């Protein structure tokens, strides 16, 4: 027990129905240090942070803040206690100015009126703590700032609030290299200031650059903790540490790879530039890149949601012009969206309705809901049975299912249409470890039956483990191609455009 620990979380346990998210996790952070919290997606990092931030309440364990027991029932209580979390989804109001955002809900007043001058100079002061502050005008609208500056505003907001503990959740996800360097300098400044920084990442480069201590989470438990910087290999080993062989499905054999099903040449739109791409039948093509590199835009262009404005797209040798998702689906392209609740599911409808959605959409409007030329109710039930969708009944609302089971139902939606190309966007986001493996095997089964699969993911281990071939995107272009067996480091170097730099 270190007496200058600001935060001491001990033996934290948290269960969600069906999943143990955290099991006996202990974690401390001192003032003036950067404690890196690393682990794969689904390891429990976000849950731990949400407990610290008062979003969730732990089932067991205690939290000490400055040595005093603390129990946060509401995020506001944690905030008032000096714990600020910068989530990946910023909580800024785009139509308000930087100053207005920083003083959201605690505006300074004088004689009943807002004291804009005082707030502006306080904003200036908070921003001037870092180098980047100079290019942010307190009066500019947040919507007009780039992502790095928005992040800077979030940090300034935390500082203006007097945060003693600052949690940063994958802060570099959307930043380019120069911006990352600025962020690192900001983190250094915070540390010198005496702030306790909890830095969540899975990138070794950032850990090596910033961390004073490291805690590795895996499957809801502390897999390792280091009080000084170890060899990066040790951290990675602790992070992954599972049998890769069975977790991911085996790679495609050369015989399984067929003729090209989808060929794009010189594809362009307002985000994408000069896209050349070949997808073969039976292959899983991974597409990697940092946030904003255009991966999702590529998926949406192929799927016709934000179509290409120039270039040619060939599907099994025939040229197609897809300008709408319906046309794409008719041509034989399917999409499993990344935002399951926002773009994938009709939550108030039954499991079966969700599975039947696409087949019904292409059947006669006025014919029976139970059977159409693609599938029928009993076939759909058998398909869902075959995918081992766990549900009390297929009549149940799909919102009660776990993320993994929901994802399977969305895949089932496409299977009945027998697509030639199926695009998965972030296929395992928000899915627990066991269900992840099932999704990987499902993708491989589909590929073996001759479907060409595009997997867009920001989870590098997944790209490396599940894809037969990897394309890396940066700034709307495809900048590199790798075969299976490539390392995360190489992909990262291409994705950030800093080939040659150390990992």
């Amino acid at each position, binding site marked *: 027990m270190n007496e200058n620990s600001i935060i001491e979380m001990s033996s934290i346990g948290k269960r969600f129905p069906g999943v143990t998210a955290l099991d006996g996790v202990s974690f401390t952070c001192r003032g003036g240090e950067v404690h890196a919290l690393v682990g794969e997606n689904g390891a429990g990092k*976000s849950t731990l942070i949400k407990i610290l931030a008062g979003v969730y309440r732990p089932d067991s364990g205690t939290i000490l803040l400055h040595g005093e027991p603390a129990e946060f029932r509401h995020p506001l209580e944690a905030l008032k206690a000096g714990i600020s979390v910068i989530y990946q989804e910023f909580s800024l109001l785009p139509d308000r100015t930087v100053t207005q955002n920083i003083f959201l809900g605690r505006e300074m007043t004088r004689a009943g009126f807002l004291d804009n001058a005082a707030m502006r100079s306080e904003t200036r002061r908070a921003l001037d703590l870092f180098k980047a502050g100079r290019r942010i005008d307190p009066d500019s609208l947040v919507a007009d700032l780039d992502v790095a500056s928005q992040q800077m505003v979030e940090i300034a907001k935390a500082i203006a609030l007097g945060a003693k503990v600052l949690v940063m959740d994958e802060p570099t996800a959307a930043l380019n290299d120069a911006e990352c360097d600025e962020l690192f300098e900001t983190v250094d400044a915070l540390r010198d200031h005496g702030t306790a920084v909890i830095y969540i990442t899975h990138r070794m480069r950032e850990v090596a650059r910033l961390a004073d201590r490291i805690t590795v989470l895996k499957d809801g438990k502390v897999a390792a903790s280091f009080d000084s910087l170890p060899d990066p290999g040790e951290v990675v080993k602790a992070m992954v540490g599972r049998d890769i062989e069975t977790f991911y499905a085996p790679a495609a054999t050369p015989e399984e790879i067929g003729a090209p099903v989808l060929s794009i040449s010189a594809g362009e739109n307002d985000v994408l530039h000069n896209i050349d791409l070949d997808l073969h039948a039976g292959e899983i093509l991974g597409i990697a890149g940092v946030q904003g590199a255009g991966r999702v835009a590529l998926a949406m262009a192929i799927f016709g949601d934000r179509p290409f404005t120039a270039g040619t797209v060939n599907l099994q040798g025939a040229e197609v012009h897809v300008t709408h998702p319906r046309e794409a689906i008719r041509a034989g392209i399917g999409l499993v969206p990344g935002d399951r609740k926002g773009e*994938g599911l009709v939550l108030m409808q039954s499991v079966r309705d969700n599975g039947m959605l696409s087949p019904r959409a292409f059947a006669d409007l*006025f014919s029976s809901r139970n059977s159409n030329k693609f599938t029928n109710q009993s076939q759909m039930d058998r398909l869902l049975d075959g995918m081992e969708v766990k549900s009390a009944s297929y009549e149940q609302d799909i919102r009660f299912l776990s993320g993994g089971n929901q994802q399977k139902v969305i895949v089932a939606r496409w299977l009945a249409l027998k697509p030639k190309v199926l695009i998965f966007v972030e296929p395992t986001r928000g899915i627990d470890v066991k269900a992840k493996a099932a999704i990987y095997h499902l993708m491989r089964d589909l590929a073996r039956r001759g479907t060409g699969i595009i997997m867009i993911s920001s989870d590098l281990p997944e790209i490396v483990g599940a894809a037969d071939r990897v394309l890396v995107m940066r700034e709307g272009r495809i900048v590199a191609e790798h075969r299976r067996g490539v390392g995360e480091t190489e992909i990262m170097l291409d994705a950030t455009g800093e080939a040659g730099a150390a990992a």
Partner: protein
Amino acid sequence: MSVQAVSEPRMRKFPKISPVYFILAALIAAIILNNPSFVEPTGYMNFLKRAAPLAILAAGQLYVIVSGGFDLSVGSLITLVVVGSSMLSNNDPASTWWVITVMLGIGIAVGLINGLVVCYLKVPSLIATLGMMITLNGFVFMWSGGAPRGYLPDTFRFFGRVSIMDIPVIRMLPIALIVLVVVGLLLYWLMHRTNLGRMIHAVGDNPRAAQLAGVPINRVRIIAFVISSLSAVVTGILLGGYAGVSTDVGSGYELQAITAAVLGGAQLLGGRGSVPATIAGALTLAAIFTLLNFLGLPQPVRQVVQGTILIFAVAFTMFRRNRNGQ
């Protein structure tokens, strides 16, 4: 963030039978206590005859509600049908069929315009259909010069007014009830047995997800508006049977229809709703009005009661939804 939850049978205890049926039964019992002659066929058949227009209108409105919108133009469309029919038919009994055809055509046009404005101009349906309401009301005044003249011929009034008499057991069978049963079954089948119905649910539930799953969302929503408008035309034809020809014959019906749908458990802003329960909701509303009449309360009290019911029915569905987890 998805909080993962596995299926638990406990969560399925969503009441399968809508509470509206129990409320309706209780109200009918109260009516019978006040007026024992209600158990006679003339009592309940006349009640059903009077309630049929609202029930049909509400079932049509449900299509728009489940698809995620509102249709406030139906009241003025009813007025247009009643006034327009009297203008067109000009007391000529032979005109009934072509006038009805013209009115159905107008209904389709109004529904199409509502749908197109919502889908392509992206005007929220509430504003779009309120605008349509103003426009149609103005149109009625323009057409009739402010004071509608003429009558509806008896052949036209047949649907809303006449009952087939001398039938064993039930003694009388209003034509309006037959129309309600036929339209109700048709709308039930469309909503609950066809692809269209499931897609209306999907579009109202999550339009973006429906779009990415390949649902032709604009076509589906336009059809919902057309169905609502057509049901308003049918309602207008039935109302023409016993209401006088005036420029406010349909006013207020749009809110009664929405209230009926909400009473039937429909989810505002889309995704959930049942045609039978909505028809039961319309009958419930009619029963409440009947009861208020028996109690001798003045007409305006209806409005107050209806407004209160509307608010609390929505509050109740929200409460039930929050309790069931979301």
